[in-house]
């Protein structure tokens, strides 16, 4: 079964020209997809539509065979992780450690497992030195790593990353690419919304190219990070 099926999607922001008119595509469970396109082509908007932050004007988005409108945001969040383009938009806890543990704690995971997973994430994303710091005081790269860690701690079946490599240096980009391989290895899929064509082509097996509100290219790419 497809993880997402988008049928005749139409969307426009209020008092603006239509962004999508009759967009249709499918994404399978475990797919690794690079979503590319120029500025303003609608990559971020499409990502937000796929996780229910924005609602289509017409058409349908099916998530695991069920209309997205039938899910609450929390139901979608239990299946799909979403990394905002600006990490500050999704950081809300008073400490780095609490930010990573937030979803796990509220979803009733065992405290020992929460502690272990948080430690793993702090370690992998090199955030141990600031575990008790106030997240808003971190550098841009650290905030980006924290936002990714907080999303991945929940081990979602699919992740939508919106410009995940912004603010990451070359070494951390490579570590992030290795992490994407791990996500793929455990059977989860991801969509990489990125301007970094080289990085996204290396990390994904499929590339959807958006142009003028349509998918202009649906290609297979190498996907070897």
């Amino acid at each position, binding site marked *: 079964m497809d993880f997402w099926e988008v049928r005749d999607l139409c969307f426009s922001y209020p008092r603006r020209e239509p962004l999508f008119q009759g967009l249709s595509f499918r994404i399978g469970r475990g797919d690794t997809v690079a979503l590319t396109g120029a500025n303003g082509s609608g990559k971020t908007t499409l990502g937000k539509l796929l996780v229910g932050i924005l609602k289509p004007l017409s058409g349908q988005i099916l998530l695991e065979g069920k209309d997205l409108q039938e899910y609450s945001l*929390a139901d979608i969040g239990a299946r799909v992780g*979403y990394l905002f383009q600006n990490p500050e938009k999704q950081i809300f*806890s008073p400490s780095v450690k609490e930010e990573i543990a937030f979803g796990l704690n509220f979803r009733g995971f065992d405290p020992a497992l929460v502690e272990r997973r948080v430690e793993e994430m702090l370690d992998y994303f090199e955030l141990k030195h600031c575990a008790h710091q106030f997240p*808003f005081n971190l550098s841009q790269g650290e905030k980006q790593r924290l936002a990714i860690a907080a999303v991945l701690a929940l081990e979602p079946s699919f992740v939508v990353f919106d410009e995940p490599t912004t603010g990451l240096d070359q070494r951390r980009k490579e570590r992030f690419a290795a992490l994407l391989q791990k996500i793929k290895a455990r059977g989860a899929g991801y969509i990489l919304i990125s301007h970094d064509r080289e990085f996204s082509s290396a990390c994904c097996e499929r590339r959807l190219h958006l142009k003028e509100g349509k998918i202009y290219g649906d290609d297979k790419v190498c996907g070897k990070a």
Partner: protein
Amino acid sequence: MATIKFVEKLDPRTKIVLVVVISTLSIIITDVLWLAGLLLLSLLLLFMAGFSPASIFSRFRRFLYLFLVLLIVQSIFAPSGEPIITIGGIQLVTMGGLLKGVAVVVRMLIIISSALLLLTAKPMELVLGLIRLKIPYEIAFMVLLAIRFLPVLVEEVQDALTAIQLRGVKIKEIPLGQKIKVYTYIFMPVVVSALMKAKKTAISMEARAFRAYPHRTYLEELNLKSFDYATIAAALLFGAGLGAAYFMGR
């Protein structure tokens, strides 16, 4: 439409006077019927300014819960007159209390609808208007910043709420204690972000020589025209007349 052009052409100071007169009347008048009349007048002004009934209603709808809370609180805590709902000998809702609640809601509607008139002026024109009304530039500019940043703050609350729900937290279904905790999580980033924005804005303004010289010049100038004087005079006369008529008729 000639009426829209008329309202558009008004100087921002004239619009400020209109809003002040209507809002002041809504505060000094307590009778529901008088308030209803004043609400009709402010709605008429909004139609003349080109607002459609749907756009006015959608703006009112955002305050629906606030109106309901005000109505309930007023009708419970200001009891008078005939009881309508009595539980265990305690008068929960009375006719007088309910009327007071309705009066408070109508007063809020008048203030909101009259303030909407200011939306027909550009933010910078409003600042110029305030300056011409002898408000210090720093304070007038703060008003502009508040107008500019209010939608940003609303968006940030929405983003935090979305981010929390996308971590799989069902806000509607969690117990009250946890719900309160979640709401503290929402307001923390909003307050922090407001403080950070204020700091960055201050640096950006000072980098562009804000308050470097005691006197400022402005690219655009405001001039009161004859219909502005006529509108201001009519608004002040109307305000004084209605206020006097209300107090003499009591």
